[in-house]
């Protein structure tokens, strides 16, 4: 069997608005420390938010006693059997519980599978540097999130991945209207004083609404949000490998995700974000 490796990770770049749209985010920024021209080597300093890239979300995101991302056992990161579940959704599309249920019913779901819920949203790299890509992403209704969590639990599946950039409507109701709809110069990204002040007033009653789907899912299910290039997963069954940034003691970290697809399953010659030749 010949396998093709497909990178499902959104490139982390300073050209992207990722991490600068919501008050709890922090954008990816770099600063040169050493340069080849001056110091003879290239090295740099990085700041970024835990949620400003393709990322792994775990129970500790919403619970101080929940499992942190470094507790996900290594055997559940490598060569995971996964099923690809199509659930098409367009700009701003809310995915309902019925859509999720129907999509799962039509999938070749096997016990313990990781589930890749594909809307098609992440298939156009040209859009990754636009604000619309982040603000108009499809998302899960809270009922859909609960239905997914229950279905995965029944199937002994502990891992959901999706190309939705966020699990909830981006920014929810409160942060979206109170923060993101302001002019950009009125909402400078964290660690600005404005963002810190907003966060100080962003209390649990608002968070429970804005993050309802995220909290419903991640309480029981390891979840990866923000995949890209899933259109290349023409085979319905793939092998996935996840590489979360090995940060200790947190509930959310950037995560690199690759899939291996059998060319026998019809992997295209030049899939989106395909990385490398046949292995």
């Amino acid at each position, binding site marked *: 069997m010949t396998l093709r490796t497909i990178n499902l990770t959104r490139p982390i770049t300073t050209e992207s608005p990722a991490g600068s749209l919501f008050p709890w985010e922090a954008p990816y920024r770099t600063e040169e420390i050493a340069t080849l021209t001056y110091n003879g080597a290239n090295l740099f300093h990085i700041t970024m938010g835990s949620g400003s890239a393709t990322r792994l979300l775990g129970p500790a995101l919403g619970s101080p006693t929940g499992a942190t991302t470094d507790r996900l056992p*290594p055997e559940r990161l490598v060569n995971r059997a996964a099923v690809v579940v199509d659930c098409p959704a367009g700009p701003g599309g809310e995915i309902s519980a019925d859509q999720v249920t129907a999509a799962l019913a039509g999938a070749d779901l096997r016990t313990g599978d990781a589930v890749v819920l594909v809307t098609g949203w992440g298939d156009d790299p040209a859009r990754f540097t636009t604000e619309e890509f982040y603000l108009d992403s499809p998302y899960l209704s809270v009922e859909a999130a609960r239905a997914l969590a229950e279905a995965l639990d029944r199937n002994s599946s502990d891992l959901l991945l999706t190309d939705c950039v966020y699990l909830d409507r981006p920014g929810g109701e409160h942060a979206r209207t109170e923060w993101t709809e302001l002019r950009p110069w009125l909402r400078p990204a964290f660690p600005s004083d404005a963002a810190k002040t907003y966060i100080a007033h962003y209390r649990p009653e608002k968070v429970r609404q804005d993050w309802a789907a995220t909290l419903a899912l991640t309480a029981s299910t390891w979840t990866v949000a923000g995949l890209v290039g899933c259109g290349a997963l023409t085979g319905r069954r793939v092998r996935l490998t996840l590489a979360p940034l090995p940060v200790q003691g947190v509930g959310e970290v950037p995560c690199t995700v690759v899939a291996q697809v059998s060319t026998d399953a019809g992997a295209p010659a030049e899939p989106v974000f395909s990385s490398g030749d046949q292995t």
Partner: protein
Amino acid sequence: MRTVNLTLPLYPFMPVGNVWAWDSPFQLTPVTTHERQGVATHQMSFHSEAGTRLMLGACYDDDAPRIHELDYGTLVNRETVVIDIPKQAGEEIEPDDIDRAVAKDPDYRDGDAVLLRTGWGDDERYRAIGDEYATTSPHFSLAGAKRLAEVMTERGSDLMLTDCAYIGNLGEGFMFPEWASRKPWDRPPFPSQQARIYMRHYTPARGAGGGAPDWGSSVVLHLAMSPVAAVANCGALRGKRVRVTVLPLFLAGAEGAPCTVLAVDGDEAGDAR
């Protein structure tokens, strides 16, 4: 089969990325918290080569491929030979070590990734000794690096992993005596003014850029292969042959990046597919 995580954890001020003048320590700043918002999110700051990291020729060569340009098919389930070269604090890997342990290893197959296990990364030593984990790590002598590059090039191997925290010469000519040997409060890390000023004076004429005596072996290894330094917990590997996955943080344009390293160890690991 079993899977072993060979990655150093990233935690505030962990030693690898916390001692040299170009280092910026790994730090976490809470943005939202369980106590105030009900969800915990963070801002992170760190060095492009913090912790376990995939290093590329692009560190020293602007024309070499960068993180987003790699063939990720070669970084997943890579056939790997595990080779022991036991070393203690400050010891160097010498050409004799390479000839004895690497060149003559009967389990080494052409094209393999090579994991050189010194024992330095075992038993969470990094927690026990802190910054000395970085400044006293075993490392490669310049001659040892050249010999390893020769052997691996001959065998068609382009990926080398090691539990040495650093592969270069630990700044022994300039950066160790002038910077890393000082008390931590006397060398505040980047982006401090002190670190910026030091880096303005750290030019190739004074050991930067891989020139001997500070980092010469680092350049040799970077230009011959992709080194992965500061892997940990290699003592947990039982087999001589494993399958290794090395996936970096997907930083577009980066000349190297922190990475996660996972090894599948066991009877079938060496004969995958």
